[in-house]
C-alpha cells in the first residue's frame, strides 16, 4: 500500500507537468484545424447504420397522398445548437426533406425538453401530438437519463410507455439515441441507456436512428475529431449538418419511398 501511494504520487507529479506541455502545442492546433474547416465535410455513413426493418407507414401515406408531412422533433439540448438553431439537425432535416420531396409540404417543429428525463417527457408526448398533429415524431432521448444515472429499468419503461402512447395516437415514431461523446466517456455511462433504447425500438418495431454509432464511425474514420477540446461552434454546425443529411436518408428509406416519389 505504502509503495503504491508513493508511486501514485510520483505519477500525479507527471500529471501536473502535462498542462504546461499542452499549452506549448496549443497555438499550433487551430492553424492545423483551419483548412479542414473550410473543406466541405465528408461524412459518409455506412449503409448498415441507416437501414431499419421497421416501416414508417404514416409517412409513406402522407407522401403518397401529397398531403402535408408534419414532423415533430422532441429532444433535449443535444437536438439544438445554442444560439444557432437553424444549423441544428432538425432544421437541416426539414430543408433536406423539402428538397427530396418537392411535391409534399413539409413542416417541422421542435419541442426542446432541456434537462428532462424520458419519464418526464413521456407524459407530455400525447399533449404535443394533440397540439401539433404530426405525421412523424422523432424522439431523441437518453442523454439526461444517463447523466443522472436513472435506473435503466425505469428508463426503459418510460420510453416503452411513451412509444406505446404515440403509436396509439396514430403517428410514426423514430428514436434517436445519445451522442457519441468521447470526452465525457469517463463521466457518463451511456451503454445501459443505449441498450434499452435498442431493445424498446425492437419491441415496438420503431426505427432507431443510431446517432451514437454514426458519430463514433465519423470519429474513427477521421471525418470529425470529436475528442479534441479546441472547437468553436463550427464543428457543431458541421456535425449537425451531417446528422440532418443522414436522418433524412434514414426517414425516406424507412418509409420505403420509391425513387419516383422522391426528387
Amino acid at each position, binding site marked *: 500500500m505504502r509503495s503504491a501511494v508513493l508511486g501514485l504520487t510520483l505519477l500525479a507529479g507527471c500529471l501536473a507537468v502535462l498542462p504546461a506541455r499542452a499549452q506549448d*502545442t496549443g497555438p499550433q492546433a487551430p492553424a492545423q484545424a483551419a483548412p479542414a474547416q473550410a473543406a466541405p465535410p465528408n461524412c459518409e455513413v455506412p449503409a448498415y447504420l441507416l437501414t431499419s426493418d421497421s416501416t414508417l407507414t404514416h409517412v409513406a401515406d402522407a407522401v403518397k397522398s401529397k398531403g402535408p408531412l408534419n414532423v415533430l422533433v422532441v429532444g433535449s439540448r443535444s437536438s439544438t445548437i445554442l444560439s444557432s438553431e437553424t444549423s441544428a439537425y432538425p432544421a437541416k432535416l426539414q430543408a433536406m426533406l423539402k428538397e427530396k420531396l418537392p411535391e409534399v409540404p413539409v413542416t417541422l417543429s421542435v419541442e426542446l425538453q432541456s434537462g428532462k428525463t424520458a419519464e418526464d417527457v413521456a407524459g407530455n408526448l400525447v399533449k404535443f401530438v394533440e397540439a401539433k398533429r404530426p405525421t412523424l415524431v422523432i424522439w431523441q432521448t437518453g442523454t439526461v437519463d444517463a447523466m443522472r444515472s436513472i435506473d435503466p429499468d425505469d428508463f426503459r419503461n418510460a420510453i416503452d410507455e411513451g412509444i406505446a402512447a404515440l403509436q396509439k395516437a396514430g403517428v410514426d415514431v423514430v428514436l434517436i439515441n445519445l451522442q457519441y461523446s468521447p470526452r465525457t466517456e469517463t463521466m*457518463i455511462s451511456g451503454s445501459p441507456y443505449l441498450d434499452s433504447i435498442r431493445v424498446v425500438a*425492437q419491441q415496438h418495431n420503431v426505427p432507431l436512428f443510431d446517432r451514437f454509432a454514426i458519430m463514433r464511425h465519423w470519429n474513427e474514420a477521421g471525418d470529425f475529431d470529436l475528442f479534441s477540446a479546441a472547437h468553436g461552434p463550427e464543428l457543431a454546425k458541421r456535425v449537425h449538418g451531417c446528422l440532418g443529411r443522414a436522418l433524412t436518408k434514414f426517414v425516406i428509406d424507412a418509409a420505403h419511398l420509391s425513387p419516383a416519389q422522391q426528387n
Partner: protein
Amino acid sequence: MTSIADRIEGPPLADGGTKTASDTAAVTAAPAITIPAAGERELRLDLFRGLALWLIFIDHLPTNILTWFTIRNYGFSDATEIFIFISGYTAAFVYGRAMLESGFMISTARILRRVWQIYVAHVFLFTIFLAEISYVATRFENPLYSEEMGIMDFLKQPDVTIIQALLLRFRPVNMDVLPLYIVLMLFLPLILWLMKWKADVTLALSVLLYVVTWHFDLYLSAYPNGFWAFNPFAWQLLFVFGAWCALSGARRMGRILSSPVTMWIAFAYLVFAFCVTMTWHFPQLSFLMPRRLEQWMYPITKTDLDVLRFAHFLALAAITVRFLPKDWSGLKSIWLRPLILCGQHSLEIFCLGVFLAFAGHFVLAELGGGALLHFAISVAGIVIMSGMAWVISWYKHSADKSAKKKGAVGNADMAGGG
C-alpha cells in the same frame, strides 16, 4: 495433502448455471471444509487476476486497438467477473485459514483492516478523479457537447458530493469495482463463518440471495440518483462461489470438470456467446439473430450479474482449468512474470490502473488522440503497472523483510497485496 485445490474454478454449466450449481450443492453431503496448507502459490490465480487487471485498465481507456483484445468483445462476461471470483477465492483461502488457526475474532479483525485499506485506496482515487474532472470542466468548451457537460454540475456543490463519495454513494464512472469489493469483504467474516459450518449451505444461501435479488429487484441506491453499478446483492454470488471453490468445492468438482460432456457444453456456449457478440460489432449481421431469442435474451445486465454472464464466466473457467494445468511450466516463464506479479498485488495495481486510465484520458485529450498515441498510452500503462508490481514485490521480499524479521505480511500478500 491437498494442494490449493486442483481445479480453481467452477462447473461449466451452459445455461441456468446458478440453478444447477445449487442443485449440486444440495445433493452433495457437506464435509467440514478443508483448508489446503500454505504450500506453493497457485500461480494460475495470480496470472488470471493480473490479466483481469490489464483488461480492466484497457477497457477503462477510450476505445483503441488493444480494446479488441479484451474478452468482453468476444462473449458476455468480462474482466470484472474474473477479478471478483479470484478475489473471493484468495480472500477465502487466506482468511479462511486464519479463521481456523486463530479464530473468528482475529480473522475478522484482519479482514476489517483490509477493508479499511481498500476504502482508503478508493477515496484516494476519488481525489484524483475530482482533480481531473475539475480540470476538464474549466477547460472544455464545445457547443456540440454543451448538454453532456452538464455532468460537471456536481462540482457546484462539493460539500454534498464529497460526503456522498465518502459514504460510497457517489461513484464516478469506472470507480465502481472497489466499493463492491469493500462491501463483499465486509461480509467475508460472516461468509467464512457460515462456510466453516456448512460450505454447501452457504453457497445455496448465496444462490438464494441472488434469486431473491432478481425477483424483488433489490439494489443499493446511489447519489444523486440511480443505484450501484455493480449490485452487491447479485455480485456476491461470484465472490461466494470463489470462496466455496477455495475451501473445498473445486476439489470436489474435479470429476465434473474433467468430463468431456462438460467441456463440450462449455465450448458450445462460448461459441454461441461469441456469435451473439459478433452481431453487436457488426450490425450488418443482426438479421441473423432470431427476434424471439433477442427479446428473451436482452438486455444482458452487468449491474445484476446476468445469468448469461455468470454462465459465460463458468464456461471460460472450465475450459481454462482443463487446458491450463496447475503445473504448466509456462507459469514460471519470464514472459508471464509481469502478469503474475500484477496479480499478486492486485489492490495496488488495480488503483494504479484506474489512475493511469484517468491520466491516459487526460493525455489523449490534451494532445489530440491519434490511434498511435492511443496504442502507446495503453502499452505504457501496462508497462508502468508491471514495473510498479515489481517494485512492490521487491519491497515485500527485500525491504520489508530486512526491516522486521517476521510479521503478518506474508498472508495478506496472498489476498492480493498488503
